[in-house]
């Protein structure tokens, strides 16, 4: 188990180094630079800037300098937000994204798993159809449609919450509900699929033959295995939700990480883009590791030590 953990952590480190390098190379390959403005700047000033930030160095040197600063946790300053270290920027935005993301994640599970299980047990019946229609709708309606709709109804019409902003203690509700509902749809479909398949397995028939009560069969035996495909989805989902959503953050004016993801790329803010990509990679690695551990615990057939 310990060996497995070390192995995975080492692999994770390599993934993170690769992500930083690839982000750097892609963003350097794109036309335009971090200092280009719609107004011209004197050539002398331009050269000075490039020298200051080491952009006149050969690409491998630049890459190495960046990697070194990330690996030694001596993070660089943002190219766009002058005077701000990327660490400060992420630290400011992280609590916002984490709050909304964690709430959305809980909504996704709390709503999606029971709905999916219920649909699986009523397969083919009207309840199943209603739940699955809603779920399909949730997957199809993008947040840029659902978000403004939610803001309009619960913010501007009913005045239950602020239409946008991050000031009142209840401001997480609408964005989390928007993101949560959309993610719950996928969770419900996966739960339904997993449970349907598990319920047709031999060992469930055996359990039924033993005369176990149906409730016990579903909760103790079926759901446990039915969760496996769902778990694979939940790792990246958690990482995705916690790192913020550009669209939702724009609609609800949240000062979260999602907007930095897009704006750093658009503004060619190399350092911030790399830091965010690295941050996202860390989240993915951590959550995938958690999923692996959970899967082993849920399914005795998977033995971590055998891997």
């Amino acid at each position, binding site marked *: 188990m310990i060996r497995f953990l070390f192995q995975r952590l080492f692999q994770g480190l390599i993934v993170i180094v690769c992500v930083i390098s690839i982000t750097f190379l892609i963003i350097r390959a*794109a036309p335009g630079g971090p200092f*280009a403005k719609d107004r011209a700047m004197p050539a002398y000033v331009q050269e000075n800037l490039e020298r200051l930030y080491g952009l006149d160095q050969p690409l491998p040197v630049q890459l190495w300098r960046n990697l070194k600063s990330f690996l030694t946790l001596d993070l660089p300053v943002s190219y766009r937000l002058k005077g701000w270290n990327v660490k400060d920027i992420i630290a400011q935005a992280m609590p916002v994204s984490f709050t909304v993301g964690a709430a959305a994640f809980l909504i996704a599970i709390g709503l999606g798993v029971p709905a999916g299980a219920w649909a699986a047990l009523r397969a083919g019946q009207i309840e199943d159809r209603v739940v699955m229609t809603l779920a399909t709708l949730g997957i199809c309606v993008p947040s840029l449609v659902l978000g403004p709709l939610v803001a309009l109804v619960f913010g501007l019409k009913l005045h239950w919450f602020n239409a946008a902003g991050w000031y009142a203690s209840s401001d997480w509700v609408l964005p989390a509900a928007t993101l949560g509902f959309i993610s719950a749809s996928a969770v419900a479909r996966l739960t339904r699929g997993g449970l349907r398949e598990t319920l047709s397995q031999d060992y469930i028939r055996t359990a039924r033959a033993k005369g176990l009560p149906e409730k016990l069969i579903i909760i103790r035996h079926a759901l446990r295995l039915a969760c496996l495909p769902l778990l694979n989805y939940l790792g990246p989902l958690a990482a995705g939700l916690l790192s913020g959503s550009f669209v939702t*953050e724009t609609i609800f004016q949240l000062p979260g990480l999602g907007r930095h993801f897009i704006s750093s790329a*658009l503004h060619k803010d190399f350092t911030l883009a790399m830091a965010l990509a690295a941050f996202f990679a860390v989240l993915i690695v951590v959550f995938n590791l958690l999923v692996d551990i959970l899967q082993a615990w849920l399914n005795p057939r998977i033995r971590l030590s055998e891997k």
Partner: protein
Amino acid sequence: MAQADEAGILLIGNGTDIESLDPHMATGQPEHHVITTLFEGLVAPAADDPDADAPGVATHWQSADFITWTFHLREDALWSDGTPLTSADFLYSWQRILSPALASDYAPMLYLMKNAQAYNEGRLTDFAEVGAIAPDAHTLVITLEGPAPFFPSLLKHYTWFPVPRHGVEKFGTMTQRDTAWARPGNLIGNGPFLLQDWRINHFISVTRNPRYWDAANVGLNGIRFFPIDNAESEERLFLDNQLHVTNSVPLAKIAVYRRERPTYFHQSPELSVEFYRCNTTRPPLNDERVRNALALALDRRALVEDVIRSGSLPATSLTPPGSSPDYPPLQLISYDPEKARQFLAQAGFPGGRGFRKIEILTNSSESARTIAEFFQESWKRELGLEISILQQEWQVYLDSTRKLTYDIARAGWVGDYTDPYTFLGIWRKGDGNNNTGWNSPAYDALLDASTQEAETSRRMATLRQAETLLMQQMPIIPVYWKTNSELIRPEVENWKPSVISHRCYKALRLGPYQPLPPRRP
């Protein structure tokens, strides 16, 4: 909202997120809005007309020839930490922004000052040779390259503002970029307000500065600026009582607001022009008859009234109205499809025959595409030309424009100061903003003549000649002059329109809370 009104805190939508509050590092209009609350230049916007000049740190100034200017600084001017503000602070600041090592984007705003350009480009290393001296602690004498009657209005731009040496150098050297001196807790200013908090993508808050020389006349206790670059989100916040003033109004709703909400919908002209650049190094656009044909075949009135519908004005030349009381907009281009067809035939393309397919380049915005499609359709209908549209991301589009890898490219220009020169100066040969490949010795000579002319009517006549020449050769096709739209709550008092987004913050007041009129009349 009612709480904010009572506390005297104004809530303003402020467009895109701010990059820097260092007056020498900032470049955008959102930055301009916040920096002018924290710092004050020699000259300040006047309360009843922010585009007019009022005393700032300088109580009065004079110039006999518009070349040498003497500014008299007030003796009670203080930095927000209590340190006296003197003429040495201004010299330090101008040296800082012009230092090549600092690599300030907007340093060219100071090039009017004698030898400023040479110092900024590293050709001159002794700052004493730059045209600014301080005979004593409260006097500044500035020498310009040539006469500029509009010079005081230029001093309202943040590039000319003072920065505190003791505040800057506590966090690094004079020319060190990326230090934390302009962050909350560190920033020392001299404006009517103090920096309180700065949350990225969230808000910037400022509070009243008790040490400001005119603190008794500051009407607000504080201001909160909200970075909101999405007009729909901003409108929702306004209707949800979370903003006093918006930065914009969703384009599609402007006509409705104008009709149904005159009490809080406001429009005012901006010193800003939308135009298209022609790449004059590429045939057939190297022929001025072709460029004139393209310019004449556009029904700009239909474009602004039926397509854009934002209250913008169809352009009849380049320089927008409001650049100077002595320079009313010229009437040089109109919609004349018949003449356009004649021009095209003279250039050898009767009915568009033999004309290669050309491409319009725009940045990737919805409205830029809509306008490009209008052009595409107009040139097809009137001239029989095949046009395609290419949209690129902002940074890529800038790159294509600079490298002249386009046929026709959308562009905009916002005036930096209230004078037509801010629009005409960029078409000189070799100017970094020209980007059309066009140049004309006659045009450059007219511009040079204007910079040596101190008498206003003669100077304006020379600039008119230059603009007429520009519009004859048409390297750029003006499209429309922009209008600024904003939603303003009724309790906001003394909010005055400005063509270059100047605001006299100390004059603003908040009256008692008033609910917005009902949404449907």
